[in-house]
Structure formats: structure tokens, C-alpha cells
């Protein structure tokens, strides 16, 4: 039994060790800092590998998606717990959980054939408007091709809503009834109860949900790979193509013939691993810090 439980520790140790060992050739060659700040990823001619374009792409898409998804997800959680009549709330909560189970590739497929064409129309309209009225905006917009950073952000935002919503919902459910009743007894409206009693009480859990969604977005692979366009340049425009740490691994891993290229891809994975661990520890810390005394999960 202890042996089996040790399997968990073993799995984690194997993960850390193999990612480091696999990426060590690249990390030795360029150094961890040099690897992370290198702006050139050139597997063809110079054999130089710097992961900065993918780090920027990952952080850019994840945080934009997070910014887009937090308020709608919170609305779902509040609707389910505070506003909807019980049967409706249950149904919506169940559906939201169900949607979290839809695989990433399916979102990617939908992204390619439905979202990207729609985004292209929108980008084109904005681009033409900007060309007329605000030409200074054009360098920030980039080519309105549909495939690119904006599409990836939208797909990610859609995908992470159920995760934030589900954790926020659990946190809100843990707010004691007395906490609400006291305010109602003072004559507060429902929104006043939510604003002054429910949200402050549940903020630790809600923040944990947001960070969980961030971790999800940072590592999301297939859907992003399918719509982001995959370039080796640092993304500087909203519409233009980009790449993330996860997407570059998925894209190039099975086609990498050179040892250094392969090792660099594993090293990108190692950095993603460190990022995921850091985000997770931050979430634990925040949950403990922000929860009212004794309610930390």
C-alpha cells in the first residue's frame, strides 16, 4: 500500500527528473536564463534555441483569456448559487460541468471551422475602420487573417469559464447561511448581500478558481495549436500569429530530427513544468491568505 502511494511520489520525481534530463543538453548549451530570454528559435540554419517567443505567447494568451473569462464565470457561479431558482440552478451547474469535459481537440476543431472565419470577418472590419480613422493603431493590430493570437485568446477564454465557475461556485456555497440572513435582516437587497457578504467571504476560493483556470490556460495545447498560427517570432500584434510553449512542443516534437532541437523542446516543457508548479503553489498560498479564519480548504 505504501508502495502504491509511493507511486505518486515516484511519478512526480520521474516527471521532474526526465524533463530536466531531457532538456539538459539545451539548458547546458544556452543556460536556463539564456534559454528563457533568447529571442531566436531557429531549428533550420543556425541551430539557436531561445524560448522567449513562446514564453511571451503563453503569458499573453493566458492572461488575456483570463481577463475575458473572469467576470462571465463569476456571473455563472452567482447565477447558479444566488439568483436562479433551485432546479434551474442545478441544471445550469450540471451543464457547465459537462462543458468542462469537452476535449480540447473538439474546441480546436470548432475553432478552425467556425470561430476563425467569424474572427476573420470581425478583424477585417476593425482593420478597415482603423485604416480609415486610426492608422496609428495598425501596427498593433497586425494582419486580419483570423488565425492568430486573438482566436487563441477567444478559444481559451471559452474553455476556462467552466473551471473558474465551478471552483467559485463551491466557494460561494461554503458561505454560511447566517452570513446572508444577517444582512437580509438588516433590509439589504440581494445584490447588496452578494457584494458585502458573499463575495468578500468567498474571495479566497474565487481567487483559487481564477488561478486554477490560469494554470489550465498556460498548459492548454491542442485548441491553441490549431488556431494560433505557430510562428517563431515574438507576438507583437493582436491579430497576428504566435505560438505558446505547449503549442510549439505539440507542433515540432515529432518532426524534430536534431538532438539539440529535441532537447530544446523538452527544455521548453521543463520551463512549463516549473511555471505550472509555481502557479499551483501561488494558488495554495492565496487560498490560505484570503480565506477568512478557519475556512481554508
Amino acid at each position, binding site marked *: 500500500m505504501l508502495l502504491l502511494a509511493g507511486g505518486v511520489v515516484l511519478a512526480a520525481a520521474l516527471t521532474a527528473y526526465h524533463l530536466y534530463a531531457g532538456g539538459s543538453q539545451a539548458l547546458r548549451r544556452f543556460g536556463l536564463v539564456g534559454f528563457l530570454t533568447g529571442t531566436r528559435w531557429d531549428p533550420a540554419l543556425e541551430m539557436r534555441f531561445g524560448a522567449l517567443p513562446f514564453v511571451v505567447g503563453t503569458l499573453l494568451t493566458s492572461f488575456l483569456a483570463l481577463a475575458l473569462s473572469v467576470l462571465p464565470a463569476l456571473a455563472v457561479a452567482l447565477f447558479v448559487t444566488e*439568483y436562479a431558482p433551485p432546479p434551474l440552478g442545478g441544471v445550469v451547474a450540471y451543464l457547465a460541468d459537462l462543458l468542462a469535459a469537452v476535449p480540447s481537440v473538439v474546441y480546436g476543431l470548432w475553432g478552425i471551422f467556425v470561430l476563425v472565419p467569424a474572427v476573420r470577418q470581425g478583424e477585417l472590419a476593425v482593420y478597415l475602420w482603423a485604416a480609415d480613422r486610426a492608422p496609428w493603431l495598425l501596427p498593433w493590430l497586425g494582419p486580419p487573417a483570423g488565425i492568430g493570437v486573438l482566436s487563441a485568446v477567444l478559444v481559451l477564454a471559452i474553455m476556462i469559464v467552466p473551471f473558474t465557475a465551478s471552483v467559485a461556485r463551491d466557494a460561494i456555497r461554503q458561505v454560511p447561511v447566517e452570513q446572508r440572513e444577517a444582512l437580509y435582516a438588516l433590509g439589504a437587497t440581494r445584490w447588496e448581500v452578494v457584494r458585502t457578504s458573499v463575495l468578500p467571504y468567498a474571495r479566497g476560493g474565487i481567487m483559487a478558481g481564477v488561478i486554477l483556470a490560469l494554470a489550465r490556460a498556460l498548459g492548454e495545447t491542442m485548441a491553441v495549436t490549431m488556431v494560433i498560427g505557430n510562428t517563431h517570432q515574438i507576438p507583437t500584434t493582436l491579430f497576428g500569429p504566435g505560438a505558446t510553449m505547449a503549442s510549439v512542443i505539440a507542433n515540432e516534437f515529432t518532426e524534430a530530427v536534431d538532438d539539440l532541437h529535441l532537447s530544446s523542446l523538452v527544455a521548453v516543457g521543463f520551463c512549463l513544468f516549473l511555471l505550472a508548479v509555481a502557479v499551483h503553489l501561488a494558488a495554495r498560498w492565496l487560498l490560505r491568505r484570503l480565506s477568512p479564519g478557519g475556512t481554508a480548504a
Partner: protein
Amino acid sequence: MAALVALGALAALLPLFLVLGYVVREGLGAIDLAFFTRDPAPVGQPGGGVRSAIVGTLIIDLMASVIGVTVGVGAGLLLSEYGHHPMAPVVRLVGDVLGGMPAIIMGLVAYQLVVRPMRRFSALAGSVALGFLMIPIVTRSTESALALVPRELREAGMALGLPRWRVIVSVVLPAARDGIVTGALLALARVAGEAAPLLLTAFGNPYLSFDPTRPMDSLPLRLFVYAISPFQEWHAQAWAASLLLVLMILATTLAARWVIRQRI
């Protein structure tokens, strides 16, 4: 304000329903009998199906479940029954951290662990990747299923003079069986749709294969290959494969709910 919250909730969930709506509409139009009974056809040839991918998915997921459930249940037992063991906090922290790991990372690990030494892609490597992904989910669900077993039941076993391990095997585990099975099924549903780790491990294979030491096809992989291809017939098959995949995951989730409902 209530209207605003309801509107926000609707706005958040609408795109998700759009995704499902498209999958059902496009998928139903492309599914036929050959889709289930034939292997993928070469480009330009009409017909063809995803039999090899369906079989491969089942084999890979089954092997992954063996890895994920054995280790996961063991860890859950340690956390719940031996909570004061010095290993317990380590297992809990490590399990939590593993739980937040991106799926593609596990693909890389399984590549280093299995593909490299074997010098070829294999279904086994894919199962290791998916199994590793299942471990933390099963650990957590097992721990909470065991926590629901009343203490009196354990004490009754102890009072009969049974050693601790015997109480766990004969009393605690049977009492928590349904909860553990539900957790395992939900974990399976979570990883069954993963394509990223399989890309680096099981690799895919357009022919029917039962050999776990060789590349094997899988629905999420086939879906990905078809989706990014430039061929119209393949796109239709991708929609059909996505419908099938979603239905399989839904069926697993419903089975999990059914198992736990049997008890009440």
C-alpha cells in the same frame, strides 16, 4: 442586477452550447456504418472510417486506467487510512502539484520514460502518459470516498481482532467501492479526450493494431490529424469523430453518476 448576472451567465455558456451544437449537427451528417467498421482510407478514396482509432482508444484507455487506478487508489488509501504517516503530507502535496500539470508535460515524460528506451512510439507510452494524468484525480476521489466510510465500521472490524490491513481490505474498501469506481470513471472521462500527450507517445497509426509495443491510433489523435488536413472528406470525418468522442466521454460520466446513484 439579477438581470445582469443572468445575462453574464448566458453569455459565458452560449459559446459552449454553440460548440456542442456544431459537433452534433456536423457530426450526425457525417456518421455512417463504414465510419465504425472501416479503417481510415487514403486521401482521395471515398469511404473509410475510424475503426482503428476506436479500438486504439479503448486499448490505450484501459491500460491507462490500470496504471492510474492502482497507484491512485493506493495513494488515496494512505491519505485517508494512514493520515499520520510521515509520507502522507508529501503524497498530498505531490499529488496536488501533479494534478495541475499540463497534459502535454506528461506526454514528454512518457516519451523520455518509454519511447526513448524502446526506440519507437508505442501504445504503452500513451497509456503511461494518460495513466500519470489519472493518478492525482483518482487519489483525490478515493480519499474523499474513504472519508465517507463511518468510523464505527472500522472500529467494528478492529473489535473483531482483525489486523489493520484486513479491516481496510475486507471492510473499508468494499464500503467505499462505489465511490472509488465513480472517481475512477470520472478520471477516465477526463483523460480520454486528451490528444496532446498521445501525439508524442502513441503517435497514431492508420491501420488496426492490437500490439501495445507499436504505434496505435486513437480518436483524439485521428480527429486532430483530420482537422488540420486540407481535405474536405477528412473534415467531415473529424466532425463525426468529435461527436463520437464527446458521446463516449458523456457515457462514461453518466455511468459514473449511475454507479453512485445505485447506493442511495
